[in-house]
């Protein structure tokens, strides 16, 4: 039965349809590769008029459709269309695709007949390709080829040579292969076979050369299927299965064999292809089915790993695939694996702890045994996986993850005491909080096992220094340097340890021992980094033991240091370090009252101070008092912006508040409204003051915050933000979570959600007034005594309940947001804008809150 034509798919049926329009339609369909529609249209066109050129176009459409069907695996239907093409345009030469299709269908004789009838009309390339197809078939043992060709045809003549080459390759006889290939001429129909065999021969040693040889075989060659299979086999092994996914069985078998896949491997792969998919479920089933081949333990372990993503739900898959249920051990292990995906460290800590408990209950065996090592490894797992103990000090909360992990690590040493990394890791962790009680047993145990370990010795030295055990620290440093003579870090620590020990001896009035330690430090201070410090120390010792001599020595040293404030600082630091006062030392050298520095002296002073602070020391209060004023005078020197900023920062760290303020003020004169200097000015002004900053100060701070943000100076902006939060009004009304300021970053936020207040603000304020008393609330609101007296008088007249109503009414007037449940303006912040003004309690009353009134809260 004729297939009904699709509505609108082919030519229009109207008799008025012009041939020209139909032709245009048919050609358009052909150009678009819509061959089925194109053939119908051209057939309709030929019904109008049988033109030769239209027949040719119909023939082309038949050919296109035939190729389409052949590609879809419909060879019979394709052949019919090829035959139609021959009928509609018999003058056309047969196409190679048609001939190849005939050959694949076993119709060799039909092709040979075509070759006799139309061979003269075939172009050279097509004829060569067609003969390569026949040669391939002849080589494969297709007798019809030889039967249909004359005896002197090269396909027959060179057939035995080609077969000999192929056989030689298959049996691994390279010499015979070489000889046979040499006998195949370039213009032979077996030329492509020769290229393939040469490629296979060279592939192991020269894969690139082999690939190039294969590329010489065209897609239209009869040897193309062979070339394709070879190319796949010689490609990347990892992608071979994927490349072969759509290949036919012959190609797969050939390529896999050539790629070195054994029969068992090929069978297993074919099995997965049949069941479809390589997802977790398919692999689980495969592991279960082939567990005997794969090994029971191995297959089981891999199956467990496949369960992790969907655990515990996925546990059912293993039984569904025919496997046995998970044992308690397996369940705990997979639970722990699964917990490693959690963001919450406690999930992982608890899961591995449960597994460790399970292993311990099973009997871990003696320390160092495999079972004990397993326990130790499990106890250390979370730390090694999450690296939680690196760079952190022990939390104060004993229930914190780091504390739990530290306990687990310590326990792990019971089962595996030979893991030096664990000793050092724990020691470093506890040292960050100077927890020497925890450190000492670990070091003792670790050094007993690893007495020559540099890491542990260094940790031991650091622990000794942390405990002021300088003698012990020096001993460890000696041990380190004996093992590693160029260890500059240890050398520096050793010098410091001797100096620290010497100072300790001075404080104990053991000056002879102090000198001995000082000499020791000099012996190790090979690069002279502490020479100046040692010289001053020695001078101070002289001053203690022989004042006139010490005075002369120190004066000479101060002069050598260039005098001035910088030298005074150096001497003062040493004096304070040995437990004496700076005043005592400075008096001895005639500089009891330090003078303002020159600009060069200022730079030297700040550099010296910075070095001192970077050593982790804090400047003594005496020195703060001593240097603050002379330094303030030095703020007049014309520093660069970077120098000014660095100076302010150093002065901040040293607690030199007056000087810091002076430098900030001076910098603001040169670079007005620079955020970092506004910050320094504000902070230095506020230091030691309990009063609240006034509106102007907060306004400047807010302006600086905006400017810092605009300039991309996030660090300064963040510091200012913290200050603004710190000086925000007291929380009479609950603020939004995270503080008021946090909302400032949310442009879309119009304010906190009224729903978050625990009670209506009216009720809340009434409760506050009841608790605090009317007078106190009014006082806090900034009302004068006279105004408060007026409220008291009114209270006597109208009663307490009414006067509270009036106070609330006053608040409603003064606070536009009050009635809506919104909090009062939180102080300066971007929402209010940099110039926004907060309302004072009353328009007519009191002065604005300021430093002069320490009791003053900014209620509104």
């Amino acid at each position, binding site marked *: 039965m004729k297939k009904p034509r699709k509505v609108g798919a082919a030519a229009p049926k109207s008799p008025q349809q012009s041939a020209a329009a139909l032709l245009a339609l048919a050609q358009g369909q052909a150009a678009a590769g819509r061959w089925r529609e194109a053939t119908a249209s051209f057939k309709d066109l030929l019904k109008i008029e049988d033109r030769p050129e239209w027949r040719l176009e119909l023939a082309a459409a038949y050919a296109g459709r035939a190729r389409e069907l052949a590609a879809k695996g419909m060879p019979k239907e394709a052949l019919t269309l090829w035959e139609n093409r021959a009928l509609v345009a018999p003058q056309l030469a047969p196409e190679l695709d048609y001939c190849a299709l005939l050959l694949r269908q076993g119709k060799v004789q039909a092709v040979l007949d075509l070759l006799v009838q139309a061979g003269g009309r075939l172009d050279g390339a097509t004829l060569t390709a067609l003969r390569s197809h026949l040669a391939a078939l002849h080589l494969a043992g297709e007798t019809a080829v030889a039967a249909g060709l004359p005896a002197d045809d090269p396909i027959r003549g060179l057939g035995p040579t080609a077969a000999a080459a192929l056989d030689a390759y298959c049996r691994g006889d390279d010499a015979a292969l070489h000889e046979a290939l040499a006998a195949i001429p370039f213009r032979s129909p077996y030329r492509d076979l020769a290229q393939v065999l040469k490629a296979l021969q060279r592939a192991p040693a020269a894969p690139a050369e082999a690939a190039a040889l294969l590329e010489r075989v065209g897609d239209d060659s009869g040897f193309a299927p062979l070339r394709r299979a070879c190319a796949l086999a010689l490609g990347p092994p990892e992608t071979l299965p994927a490349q072969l996914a759509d290949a036919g069985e012959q190609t797969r078998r050939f390529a896999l064999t050539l790629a070195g896949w054994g029969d068992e491997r090929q069978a297993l792969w074919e099995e997965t292809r049949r069941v479809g998919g390589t997802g977790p479920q398919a692999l689980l089933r495969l592991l279960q089915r*082939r567990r005997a081949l794969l090994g029971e333990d191995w297959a089981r372990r891999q199956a467990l790993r496949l369960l992790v993503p969907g655990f515990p739900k996925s546990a059912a898959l293993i039984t569904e695939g025919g496997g046995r249920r998970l044992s308690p051990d397996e369940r705990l292990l997979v639970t722990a694996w699964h917990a490693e995906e959690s963001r919450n460290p406690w999930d992982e800590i608890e899961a591995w702890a449960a597994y460790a408990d399970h292993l311990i209950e099973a009997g871990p065996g003696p320390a160092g045994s495999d079972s004990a090592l397993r326990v130790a490894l499990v106890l250390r*797992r979370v730390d090694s996986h999450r690296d939680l103990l690196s760079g952190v000090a022990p939390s104060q909360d004993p229930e914190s993850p780091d504390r739990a992990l530290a306990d687990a690590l310590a326990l792990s040493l019971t089962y595996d005491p030979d893991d030096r990394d664990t000793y050092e890791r724990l020691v470093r962790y506890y040292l960050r909080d100077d927890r020497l009680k925890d450190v000492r047993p670990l070091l003792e145990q670790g050094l007993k096992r690893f007495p020559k370990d540099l890491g542990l010795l260094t940790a031991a030295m650091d622990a000794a220094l942390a405990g002021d055990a300088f003698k012990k620290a020096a001993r460890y440093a000696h041990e380190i340097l004996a093992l590693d003579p160029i260890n500059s870090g240890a050398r520096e620590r050793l010098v410091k340890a001797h100096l620290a020990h010497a100072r300790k001896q001075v404080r104990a009035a053991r000056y002879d021992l102090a000198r001995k330690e000082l000499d020791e430090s000099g012996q190790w201070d090979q690069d002279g980094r502490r020479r100046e410090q040692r010289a001053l120390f020695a001078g101070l010792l002289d001053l203690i033991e022989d004042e006139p001599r010490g005075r002369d020595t120190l004066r000479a040293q101060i002069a050598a240091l260039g005098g001035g404030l910088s030298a005074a600082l150096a001497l003062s630091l040493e004096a304070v370090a040995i437990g004496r006062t700076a005043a005592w030392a400075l008096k001895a050298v005639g500089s009891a009252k330090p003078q303002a520095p020159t600009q060069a002296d200022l730079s030297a002073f700040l550099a010296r101070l910075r070095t001192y602070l970077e050593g982790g020391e804090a400047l003594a209060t005496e020195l703060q008092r001593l240097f603050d004023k002379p330094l303030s005078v030095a703020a007049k020197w014309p520093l660069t912006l970077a120098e000014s900023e660095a100076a302010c920062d150093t002065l901040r760290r040293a607690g030199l508040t007056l000087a810091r303020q002076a430098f900030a003020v001076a910098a603001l004169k040169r670079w007005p409204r620079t955020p970092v200097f506004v910050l320094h000015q504000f902070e230095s002004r506020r230091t030691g003051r309990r009063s609240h900053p006034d509106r102007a100060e907060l306004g400047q701070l807010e302006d600086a915050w905006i400017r810092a943000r605009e300039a991309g100076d996030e660090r300064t902006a963040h510091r200012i933000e913290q200050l603004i939060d710190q000086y925000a009004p007291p929380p009479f009304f609950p603020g939004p979570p995270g503080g008021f300021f946090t909302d400032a970053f949310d442009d879309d936020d119009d304010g906190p959600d009224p729903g978050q207040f625990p009670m209506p603000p009216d009720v809340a304020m009434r409760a506050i007034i009841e608790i605090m008393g009317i007078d106190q609330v009014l006082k806090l609101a900034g009302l004068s005594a006279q105004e408060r007296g007026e409220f008291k008088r009114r209270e006597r007249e109208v009663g307490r309940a009414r006067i509270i109503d009036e106070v609330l009414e006053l608040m409603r007037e003064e606070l536009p947001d009050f009635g809506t449940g919104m909090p009062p303006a939180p102080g300066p912040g971007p929402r209010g804008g940099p110039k926004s003004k907060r309302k004072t309690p009353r328009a007519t009353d009191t002065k604005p809150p300021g430093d002069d009134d320490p009791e003053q809260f900014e209620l509104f």
Partner: protein
Amino acid sequence: MSDPYLTLGLPPDADDAAVYAAYLAAVKTCPPERDPQRFQALRTAYESLLTHRARLATALFNQEPPTLLEVLNRADPVGAPRRPARALFDALLRGGD
């Protein structure tokens, strides 16, 4: 890499020396300049089996699921390239796909 033993072609009871020897042999056939990816896989496998403690840790903590290729490698590792039999050639010469 779910099984470093497979990557290095080692039995599960391999000791330090065997691991080192397998790694050296593998690297010789696959130096980093030729196939960096494969070399990295070898290196990772080697490091995960380097010591007895590392081997125990790998067994406990490696949760990488297997790939089909690894299952196949376990069942029957890829061997040296084999020359297909003549029959396989003939099938393709007949135009088989």
